[in-house]
């Protein structure tokens, strides 16, 4: 047995050795060890380097509050977890862990030169230092120079670069009582609550074994309590489960670790499980966290919390040193002293700040041969990678501290007393109450909608033995001395940093926190917040409760991304919507793009064809012969009822009262402000029945808006809508040969031009399938849109494809569709409009029903600013060189070299190569654009301004003859 282990006792299995590596070196621990206890059992105290100064750091605590001992555990490239607390990592055979924040090695770290530059790294060093130099331009210095440097040098572990191969599960659970923490108080609360068999109880604890502090003693009570709970069917016990977030109305998030402790986890088992619990009552039994003492050099490896030392000795059978000093302002540290003595550690001294420590404890110490120094503090430590000695200081009655002896030791067990762990109560938004007598914040009144009960130490009701009698930094001989007394170990914040912040005028605790970064590390200041408040209180000469408290936020300890992502990754990241013809389009080699959740075919390249070549070919096919397009993603609504036409009159800018049965109308939708928000086509199927299309992206929004007006604004209207987007597959057949292609497939519809004119709608059959056929066009060519039941879409697609092929046509995708409509000057809502364009701005003033008393947007459009001259209007642009395709979004100015700060006239909204016109075309919105026809404007670009001519937005067939052919 190693000389760092005790002879007997503890909860480790002394018969089962476990091999693991740390920074590549092989060590042996025991079954039941954490990485921290196993390292201590091998005499390893140096486990990391600090964040800012790269100081050697050891293990401070024994649980979740550990600020220093952050490690990376590596299973393989995708299973590498940084920033784990060594005190919570269970070892298994073959575990490989490494230290962080050191280069090239933990023992020899170049970053430690930061310590020499430490005057530069005081409070607010980010804000003060990283402001220039000016030649890089404002803000650029940070991004280009400092941030990459700091990121490389600082802090924390690196995220793995390979994808995470593990599975993460998720469960919802409901219970009457959720108990967080399975120490004595939590176990008793769970037993009491579950005595009623109808009361569902969940008890969770972040450790592998339930029992909390009782695990240090190994009581029979514990075994019995766990057995009783385990036998009750209304109880669910969740070990290795961290309650990391409390949310409104009794919602609590738990992270359960399922495989991290296993040497060879089954691929069937998820790595972690997220529990989303809704609890009638949340019982918090989260215990207390020990407060470190703030004295110069309190961060050397070998300086540990007294309670942690006691836990390592009793629970893990560790002798954490050969010769120990106990420094305290609290009785409980005497327990650690006795435990160490029991473990065979030499006790050099107990250094107690108090004049008169507890007489019984002091007597016991003396009886055990431990010298007790009263009214004493540690005023400094020596040693590099491990504490070697401490310097004793005597506090004179006047408050002056005199440095006296040096005491050799390799372990310092310190205690500033205990602080209730109120994080989860604070997350529940409950009010914390300051208790002047015990000097701690404890849970007060519940937030509305929450029912919590704090039991045990976290309630703030704890034995006097656990009280600390001093808050903040310990007195020192010279507060200006260079030695650092750390408050926040993880963020390297010293007592002096906090005093400096106070001197510089930061008086609010929220400001001090951000300025010094105290409490802002991944441990959220679990061990540091109270000391920071104590120091600030002294510096501002204000009592602690007058300073306020920063907010405790979720998560209590860091949580993996995986547990939040759960199954929502790769193909399941988002739902995917596919049209009925998707497989057909895919088989043709369609290249798909995401439009909302939809997959839409962007273009259909043939062998060896570039995207541009494919799009140009598709455009030619439509203009010269016929094209087939899958328009099934368009939003579709069926509106029914005697007042359906009246409703449409009120919501769209157009007039529908006179729309005949079997006729369609292009319809523009605005909001009450008068801005275009959607467009589509409204077809009248019957006197009281309409088929309405919306944009693909606007379908849900428009449906919700109609519902809002129907339900809340005009409930008297007898009109009802149904979304039929998913009920129909829609195929557009467009081009001069459209009728020739479609007519032979149609039954029951007279297809002659006069019988079935542009903007008409007929019902019949296409290829034997019942169909609603619209004669309409988004390309400028004569064309049809065939709607068939979605289930028949996959059957109709190849029939249409075949007919189009035989006529020398082609299937086309969304890109060709965009080019074709732009050639015709048809807008796309969201491309030509940006939520501030009226129908008139985009050339759709003609669509507005002139005789209507009111409609949504009518009053909005009459606002002074919306009818003022100089508004941006839709125009076409041609580049003077006839070959440059402008960039969409590019600004438009009246001079090639606009003065810095001058406003643009507008911007390019759409820009393409037009195959039909053999030149680039663009749509744009330009101030007073319709009055600028023929003017030359400029599009300034990094390579120089591009001159453009303002023209009509309708480039192709301005008379519209082709639509009616």
């Amino acid at each position: 047995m190693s000389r760092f282990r005790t002879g007997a006792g503890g909860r480790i299995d002394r018969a089962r050795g476990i091999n693991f590596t740390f920074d590549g070196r092989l060590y042996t621990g025991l079954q039941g060890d954490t990485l921290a206890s196993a390292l201590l059992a091998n005499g390893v105290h140096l486990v990391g380097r600090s964040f800012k100064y790269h100081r050697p750091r050891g293990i401070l605590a024994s649980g979740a509050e550990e600020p220093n001992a952050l490690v990376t555990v590596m299973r393989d490239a995708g299973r590498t977890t940084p920033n784990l607390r060594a005190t919570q990592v269970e070892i298994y055979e073959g575990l490989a862990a490494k230290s962080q924040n050191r280069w090239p090695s933990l023992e020899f770290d170049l970053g430690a030169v930061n310590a020499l530059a430490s005057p530069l790294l005081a409070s607010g060093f980010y804000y003060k230092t990283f402001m220039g130099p000016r030649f890089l331009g404002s803000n650029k210095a940070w991004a280009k120079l400092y941030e990459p440097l700091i990121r490389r040098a600082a802090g924390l572990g690196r995220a793995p670069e390979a994808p995470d191969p593990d599975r993460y599960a998720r469960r919802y659970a409901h219970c009457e009582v959720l108990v967080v923490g399975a120490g004595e108080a939590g176990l008793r609360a769970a037993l009491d609550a579950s005595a009623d068999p109808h009361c569902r109880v969940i008890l969770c604890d972040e450790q592998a074994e339930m029992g909390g502090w009782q695990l240090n003693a190994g009581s029979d009570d514990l075994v019995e309590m766990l057995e009783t709970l385990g036998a009750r069917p209304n109880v669910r016990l969740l070990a290795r489960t961290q309650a990391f977030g409390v949310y409104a109305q009794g919602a609590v998030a738990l992270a359960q670790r399922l495989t991290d402790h296993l040497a060879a986890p089954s691929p069937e088992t998820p790595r972690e499980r997220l529990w989303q619990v809704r609890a009638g009552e949340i019982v918090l039994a989260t215990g207390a966290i020990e407060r470190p003492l703030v004295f110069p050099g309190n961060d050397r490896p070998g300086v540990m919390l007294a309670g942690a030392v006691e836990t390592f000795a009793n629970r893990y059978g560790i002798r954490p040193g050969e010769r120990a000093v106990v420094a305290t302002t609290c009785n409980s540290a005497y327990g650690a002293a006795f435990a160490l003595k029991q473990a065979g550690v030499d006790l050099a001294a107990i250094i107690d700040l108090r004049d008169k420590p507890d007489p019984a404890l002091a007597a016991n110490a003396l009886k055990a041969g431990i010298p007790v120094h009263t009214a004493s503090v540690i005023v400094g430590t020596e040693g590099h990678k491990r504490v070697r000695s401490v310097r004793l200081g005597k506090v004179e009655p006047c408050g002056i501290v005199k440095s006296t002896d040096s005491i050799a030791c390799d372990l310092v067990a310190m205690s500033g007393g205990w602080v209730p762990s109120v994080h989860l109560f604070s997350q529940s938004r409950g009010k914390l109450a300051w208790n002047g007598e015990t000097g701690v914040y404890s849970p007060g009144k519940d937030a509305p909608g929450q029912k919590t009960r704090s039991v045990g130490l976290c309630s703030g009701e704890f034995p006097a033995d656990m009280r600390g009698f001093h808050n903040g930094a310990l007195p020192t001989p010279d507060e200006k001395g260079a030695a650092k007394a750390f408050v926040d170990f993880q963020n390297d914040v010293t007592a002096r940093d906090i005093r400096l912040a106070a001197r510089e005028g930061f008086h609010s605790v929220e400001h001090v926190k951000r300025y010094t970064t105290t409490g802002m590390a991944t441990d959220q200041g679990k061990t540091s917040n109270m000391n920071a408040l104590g120091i600030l209180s002294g510096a501002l000469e204000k009592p602690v409760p007058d300073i306020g408290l920063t907010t405790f936020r979720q998560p209590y300890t860091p949580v993996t991304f995986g547990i939040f992502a759960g199954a929502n990754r790769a193909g399941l990241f988002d739902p995917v919507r596919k049209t009925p013809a998707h497989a057909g389009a895919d088989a043709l080699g369609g290249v798909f793009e995401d439009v909302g959740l939809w997959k839409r075919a962007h273009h259909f390249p043939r062998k060896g064809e570039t995207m541009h070549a494919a799009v140009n070919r598709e455009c030619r096919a439509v203009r010269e012969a016929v094209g087939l397009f899958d328009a099934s993603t368009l939003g579709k609504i069926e509106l029914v009822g005697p007042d359906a036409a009246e409703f449409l009159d009120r919501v769209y800018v157009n007039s529908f009262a006179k729309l005949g049965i079997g006729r369609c109308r292009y319809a523009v939708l605005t909001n009450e402000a008068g801005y275009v928000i959607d467009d589509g086509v409204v077809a009248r199927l019957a006197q009281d029945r309409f088929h309405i299309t919306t944009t693909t992206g606007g379908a849900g929004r428009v449906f919700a808006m109609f519902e809002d007006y129907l339900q809340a604004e005009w409930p008297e209207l007898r009109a009802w809508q149904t979304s039929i987007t998913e009920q129909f597959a829609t195929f557009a057949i467009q081009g001069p040969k459209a009728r020739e292609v479609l007519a032979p497939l149609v039954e029951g519809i007279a297809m002659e031009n006069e019988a079935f004119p542009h903007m008409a709608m007929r019902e019949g059959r296409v290829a034997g399938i019942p169909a609603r056929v619209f004669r309409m066009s988004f390309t400028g060519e004569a064309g049809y849109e065939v709607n068939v039941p979605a289930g028949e879409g996959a059957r109709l697609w190849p029939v249409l494809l075949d007919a189009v092929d035989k006529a020398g046509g082609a299937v086309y995708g969304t890109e060709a569709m965009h080019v074709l409509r732009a050639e015709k000057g048809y807008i796309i809502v969201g491309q030509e409009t940006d939520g501030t364009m009226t129908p008139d701005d985009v050339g759709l003033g003609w669509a507005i029903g002139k005789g209507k008393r009111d409609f949504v947007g009518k009053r909005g459009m009459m606002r002074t600013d919306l009818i003022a001259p100089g508004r941006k209007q839709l125009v076409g642009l041609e580049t003077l060189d006839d070959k440059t395709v402008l960039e969409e979004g590019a600004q438009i100015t009246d001079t090639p070299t606009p003065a810095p700060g001058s406003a643009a006239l507008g911007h390019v909204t759409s820009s393409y190569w037009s195959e039909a016109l053999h030149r680039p075309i663009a749509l744009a919105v330009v101030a007073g654009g319709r009055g600028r026809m023929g003017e030359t404007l400029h599009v300034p670009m990094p390579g120089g301004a591009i001159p453009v001519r303002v023209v009509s937005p309708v480039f192709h067939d301005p008379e519209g003859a082709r639509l009616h052919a």
Partner: protein
Amino acid sequence: MLLILCPYCQSRRAELEFRNVGAAHISRPSDPQTTTDAQWGEFLYQRDNPKGRIAERWLHIHGCGRYFNAIRDTISDVFVTTYKSGEPPPAMPSEAKP
């Protein structure tokens, strides 16, 4: 995640099923054309943002699809009550905390 009682479904459901749609009890003027720019601007854009209880509209979008009203406390997020569209807001002392 909040639990919200839909007054139509009479069921307390998870917040995920709902969408907030802004302030309640703002009626569209019956004859907008007679309003001044200031009045219309008030209707379009001016909303109270009190600390405490507010009346707001919610849509049970992944449930029954109905719009309804709710009184919510903006400090605690607690839903004091929910009620159907068209019903007047329930009388309650505005300063009282639940």
